[in-house]
């Protein structure tokens, strides 16, 4: 099996698919050219993420990491949500194949983008960490994309 059971569970029964009409923050990362787009909707009340929904165009891992990421941030404070890394998403899914690690990065970025949107709308301080990163593989170099493992030999 290429994917863990957890991944397949979140792929075939993704949690929190959909839109939030009156979202407080919306973020979209990735692009169609690279085959992955994640769009995340957050409902935030008193600094707490009370609801999260997503739409994703992408592979099985992209769907599963979106699903898991929304699960992980629901009920968390913004601070807590900001600290959820791609590694945490991967671990919660019992791992990802090396070629798919970038999907977890995308999920981390989608959360950050939605929170950034929330802050912008509310005039809060900006976190520019993810600016300009389209999520396309080999792009920003800021994360452990794990590709070395697969492509050690060329």
């Amino acid at each position: 099996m290429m994917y863990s059971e957890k991944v397949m569970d979140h792929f075939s029964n993704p949690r929190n698919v959909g839109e939030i009409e009156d979202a407080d923050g919306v973020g979209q990362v990735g692009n169609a050219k690279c085959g992955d787009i994640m769009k995340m909707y957050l409902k935030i009340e008193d600094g707490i993420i009370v609801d999260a929904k997503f739409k994703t165009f992408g592979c099985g891992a992209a769907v599963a990491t979106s699903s898991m990421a929304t699960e992980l941030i629901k009920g968390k404070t913004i601070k807590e949500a900001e600290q959820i890394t791609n590694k945490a998403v991967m671990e919660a899914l019992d791992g990802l194949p090396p070629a798919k690690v970038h999907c977890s990065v995308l999920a981390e970025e989608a959360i950050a983008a939605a929170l950034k949107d929330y802050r912008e709308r509310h005039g809060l301080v900006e976190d520019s960490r993810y600016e300009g990163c389209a999520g396309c593989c080999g792009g920003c170099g800021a994360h452990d994309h794990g590709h070395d493992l697969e492509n050690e030999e060329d």
Partner: protein
Amino acid sequence: MQERVIYFDHAATTYVKPEVLEAMIPYFTQNFGNASSIYSIGRQNRNAIEDARSTVAKSIGAQNPSEIYFTGSGTEADNWAIKGTALYHQKKGKHIITSTIEHPAVLATCEFLQKQGFVITYIPVDNEGLVNPDDVDKAIRPDTILVTIMMANNEIGTIQPIKEIAQVCKKHGVLFHTDAVQAAGNIPINVQDLGVDMLSVSGHKFYGPKGTGMLYIRKGVRIENLIHGGHQERNRRAGTENVPGIVGFAKALELATLNLDAHYQKLYSLRERALKGIFERIPHVRLNGHREKRLPGNLNVSFEFVEGESILLMLDMKGIKASSGSACTSGSLDPSHVLLAIGLPHEIAHGSLRLSFGEQNTEEEVDYLVDSLVEIIDKLRRMSPLYEDYVKGV
């Protein structure tokens, strides 16, 4: 649901037919002697190999069995034809012509040669994946030593005008090789009628064993060896002969050739049924490859707003085995070079599905496929931000 297995990935590989396996079995445990040895059990194997060679020669219309060389795969045959020509004829020139939609066995070999100082021209294809023989004509230079254009494409199934391209090559006195790995067993092949100088085939695409292949080399065509060593295959391909593999390869090709018309008709009608069902019931679909000039069992479609791997996984959960673009590149992040070559935008290329039908598929299976796809594409589109944008008119 999980128990059911419906295999629509015959272009990737086929099972070995029982008759083929049966023909192979005696050569594993009983008639195992070295075909190059002098004693009687060795000579039995020699005869088995030469019978296989004659069978294969007849199946592809070769003038003489001695034009057939058994290899360890289709990839090896492609490598041999291209590198063998390059090395042998490099004094005449270092220019090679191929197309943009070849299999990696050809493309990676050309890239390797490029690093060794050869010059490669990649002929583009039109929107349906066709090479224009005139383009080949114009691309040939005085230092061109080889043209290699595949007979039928593994992803989109488009069948090239091989005979016309061969005529162009002949006019210029340039050697012509064709990768017929996808064509063999699915459409008629007659090397004399086609006028090709070299032609590659792989056993596991027509119900023969994996790890077997063949290169046809027209009598008189000289190329360097790829695998040097003993005197096997008339000094041109070294290594103890894989007798069961060779026997199985020939048996499978013989059966496929005898059965070609019925096979073609059956696959064609399954393909058309699937095509009709998909296009009638699912919007925003696009057929990739040529509408008529295509392998009978090949269907390649792009579903807008969704991504291919997700389709494959959902099909797999329903027991349906298919492929996205090319099986070889699944897992890679780039969309198929073939789909890009016929002009698909990246995001549409990402949403492509290859279905390749085979002998044991049924109409009922095709109907189940179409029902499944209707459900899956709907589910994925409802999850897709691209579809959301489209619906909202963004």
